[in-house]
Structures are given as C-alpha cells and as structure tokens.
C-alpha cells in the first residue's frame, strides 16, 4: 500500500492574527503541522501498518521553513518526505495549491492520497478534491471512519445532520476530519530516526495564481454588549432583551 500524505505548515489555532499588506503578519506567530493533516498522517501510518507493506510519503507545498513540519511527520513514522518549495506557497490559494500538488504527483505511484479536510489558514476545504479531480481519481471528503480492503474504500462522513457511507475504488483520495483517529506523538526514537530519513527539497514553479487577494481585514468589531445581571435572577431581563430589543425570539 503506497500512500502519499499531504501536509501544510500553518499558524497554530491559538495564534492571534495580524495583517500586513493583505497577508498574515508571521511575526510572533507559532507555526505547526495543520491539525487535520495529523489525522491524515496517522491514518496513512495505520493503513500501511495494517497492510504490512508499502510506504508513506509526506508531501508539502511550502516555503523552506516547512521542512520542520515534514521532519515531524517523518518522526511520526513516514518513510520519506518531499518539500515542493516556493516562497509564495504559504499565501497560495486552494486551486493553485491543488494544481502544483497534482502536477508533482504525476509519475508517482500511489494507492491512496491522504489530506486534512482543510488547512486552518486559508480554510478552503478544497485542495483534496481538487487534486483528485485533476488526477482523475475518486475522492471522499471529511471522512470520520475509513476501511480499506480488496481494492476499495468504504468511508463514513458527517454531513449536516446525517452520516453518509461512500464507496470508491483505489486509487482514491481521502480528506480527514476530526474523529477519524487519535494522532500519535513522535517518540524519541522516531525523532532520532527521522534525522536519517530522506527529505527531498524540489523547487517548483507556481505560475499564475487562480485567485487574487483584493483585501484582507480583521473581522468587523462587534457592537458593545452589556451584562444584564447576576445569576438566575437576571433571566427575565435577558429574555425580555432578546425578545424586545434584539428581536431574535
């Protein structure tokens, strides 16, 4: 079972966002492996282990700094890593990222392409299905349960108010949602081993971006609120305010 697990370096979800020139100001921001990609890496490793043979290759489209996150994935247990390097990568939109990843997957052998369901920076939720579409393989998004057997996958995903079961044949792409598994931590042995594993850096062209950023702003400030009171005694006033002032009841 040959698996490619795609990962991205993103700001930690605890990070405050500041904007300079319509971009995130990276100063003082902690960067981490995209949390949804951790589910993809874990699932990739577990599937390979269950199959008893094969490889897990981590691929990231990123700037040079993303080697750190790729080392983390190697320490978790991936066999090899490839950084598709371009300084513009962290700002790239979903469609452009997908095009770069798909172009660089041609010629690679794979049974599964594993993605996080979204990167928590651009939040486009689309790189997985776009890469799969460009490569002409099926894709199942936002998966919370996955079975791989006899050349096909059976996956469960949560849609609004319901759960659906989807079947597809291999090779196939999967985007991973919270609930699929509990990602492992890199062990000390894993961290030591990762230093000797191959991490290839390939400079890539980005070409014309599919999306142009016109403006980037902080969320609109919320109007000032008020404390209506303390404890259960304040409830009648709250309900009256919701009904008569805010008119939401």
């Amino acid at each position, binding site marked *: 079972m040959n698996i490619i697990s795609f990962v991205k370096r993103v700001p930690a979800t605890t990070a405050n966002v500041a904007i300079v020139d319509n971009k995130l100001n990276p100063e003082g921001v902690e960067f981490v492996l995209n949390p949804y990609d951790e589910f993809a890496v874990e699932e990739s490793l577990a599937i390979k282990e269950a199959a008893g043979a094969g490889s897990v290759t981590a691929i990231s489209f990123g700037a040079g700094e993303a080697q750190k996150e790729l080392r983390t994935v190697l320490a978790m247990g991936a066999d090899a890593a490839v950084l598709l390097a371009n300084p513009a990568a962290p700002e790239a939109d979903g469609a452009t990222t997908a095009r770069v990843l798909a172009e660089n997957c041609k010629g690679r052998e794979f049974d599964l392409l594993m993605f996080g369901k979204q990167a928590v920076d651009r939040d486009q939720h*689309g790189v997985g*299905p776009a890469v799969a579409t460009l490569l002409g393989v099926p894709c199942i998004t936002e998966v919370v349960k996955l079975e791989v057997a006899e050349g096909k996958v059976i996956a469960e995903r949560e849609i609004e108010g319901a759960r659906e079961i989807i079947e597809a044949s291999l090779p196939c792409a999967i985007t991973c949602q919270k609930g699929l598994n509990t990602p492992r931590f890199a062990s000390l042995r894993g961290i030591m081993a990762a230093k000797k594993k191959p991490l290839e850096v390939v400079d890539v062209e980005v070409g014309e971006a599919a999306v142009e950023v016109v403006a*980037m702003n902080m969320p609109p400030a919320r109007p000032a609120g008020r404390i209506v009171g303390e404890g259960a005694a304040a409830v009648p006033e709250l309900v009256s305010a919701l009904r008569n002032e805010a008119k939401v009841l």
Partner: protein
Amino acid sequence: MSNILVVLESREGSLRAASLEALGAARTFADQRGSSVIALATEKCELDASLLGGAGADKVLIADAAGHSADGAAATAARVAKESDATVVLLSATVRGRDLTARIAALLGTGFAADCTAADAEAMTFTRPEFGGKAFTTIKINGPVAVASLRGNFFAAAGREASAEMSEVASEAGVSMVTEISSQTGGRPDVSEATKVVAGGRGMGEAENWSMIEAVADAIPGCALGASRAVVDSGWRPHSEQVGQTGKTVAPELYIAAGISGAIQHLAGMNSSKVIVAINKDAEAPIFKHATYGIVGDALEVLPALADELKKLGL
C-alpha cells in the same frame, strides 16, 4: 450571456433549504449582468417551480442520477456550466457543497472561493473568512468562471413572485457513490445550519448536565446544540456539535454560550453570530467581551431558569 449557475443540494429526493439562499445570491449577480439564473439539481429530486422561481431561478435543470456521487455531480455541473455559458457557479457551503465547489473549479480550470459571507456582483469579488474567522479576505477569481460556495445565514432567497421553467438533463456517471444516509441529530437542526444555537462548555460540569442545555433548546423552535472543543475532547458531546476553529463555524441569529470561557479558537467559530449571550461564573471570561448580553453566574443555575422563562413565551 454570462449566466449564473446554482448547483442545488438535495438529500434523498428533497431540496435543502440552503440552496434557496444561493439562488437569491445568484439573482443579484444575474440582475447586475442582465443574465439568467440557472438552477441545476445533479440528482433526481422533487422540486417546486414557484419555490425555486421565487427564490431567484429562471430555469431549473434536473439531472437523472439516482443518488449522490460527488465526482458524477461535479462532472454534470461542469458540463452544464459550459453549455449554459456560466460565468459564476454558486453552491451552498455544506460538506457536499464545499467538496463540489473545488471539483467543479478544477474541471473548469479556474479558482474557487469556499464559505463566502459576502459577494459583490459588480466588482465580481467574494469575501470569506480565513484563519477560522480571525480575518476576512476579499478575493477575485482569475479564470473564466468564478466558483464559490456560500455560508448559510449570510444570503437570502430573492422573495419574488415567479415560476421557474423546468426541464431535464442527462447526468454524468460517477465512480464514487453514497450508499447509505442515516440521520444523526435526533430531529434537531445541525449546528452549522441552525438560526439559533445553545452551546455548552466546561462550565457545565459534567455530561449529564446537558439535559439543561437540551431544555433550553427545546423551548426555542429550530434551536441546535453546540459544544466547545474541551467538552468534545472529554467525550461529553459528539464532535459533530463542536463549534470553533477545528469544529464548525456558525453564524446564527442567536448563540447562547453557557459555561464557555471563550478561547480564541471558539470565538473564531461563532463571532459572526448576530446576537451572542454569555452565561459564565467568571466575570473576566473573554466570552463577555464578545457578548451582546451577559449573565455572570453559574450556568447550572441560570439555564433551568432560562428554560422556564422561555417556555412561558410558548415560542
């Protein structure tokens, strides 16, 4: 003619209400450009010509696929977009919709914008949250067609008197198929679609106390349940209820946060709600800085009183 294509979402033969919001947004684009709104159902479903016409559609095309295949639906939508000379393709930002948005853009060789909260029909720009709602980016899609999914509760159906012209189209075959759908929320709307949400956090003390959250939700029609990451990670609530940067992003009319302190990741997921009510013991909790109304107090005492007061209203 630069038509506007809306890809409708249906489930087991019934139209999803979010699609009507997309039709309303499409109407704004079409009126600006003097073109038509074409609605496409990528699988067989029951559709009402006056409901869709009223929401904004001029023409409705119903494909003959028997179930949902994401790749099949995307291929049908991309073909219809080309045939109908569409310059904008709009979907709902649901799980299925976001999936299709990226695929349709890939098939049409263009860019996409997911989860848009605003669109400018004249400038052809889309505004969307990034970094879990900590920033809003306005983008222009380079390429022949703009493909975008629209977040629920940010756009409205057109509300006009009109009947759409209905016809059938062939569907493209899909390779992956949905084989089973089962309802999950016990009759309540999903937290990402509801107009009212009551959510609980660590301050609820233990999972058993969720009956108090449910009692408040029961007293408000159409109210969904939400939860903070902390309680989902503790196994008190299913992750389908999690609101925040690694959960669902919501923007209801009313969001009641009980025993939620307001970590930055949670705030990112609900900060666009119209009215926020915070109930928390700690008067210094960050949630109060974002709340429209706050009660400083133990959620376990305030919620039962709130449920009683709401019941009196008989909503």
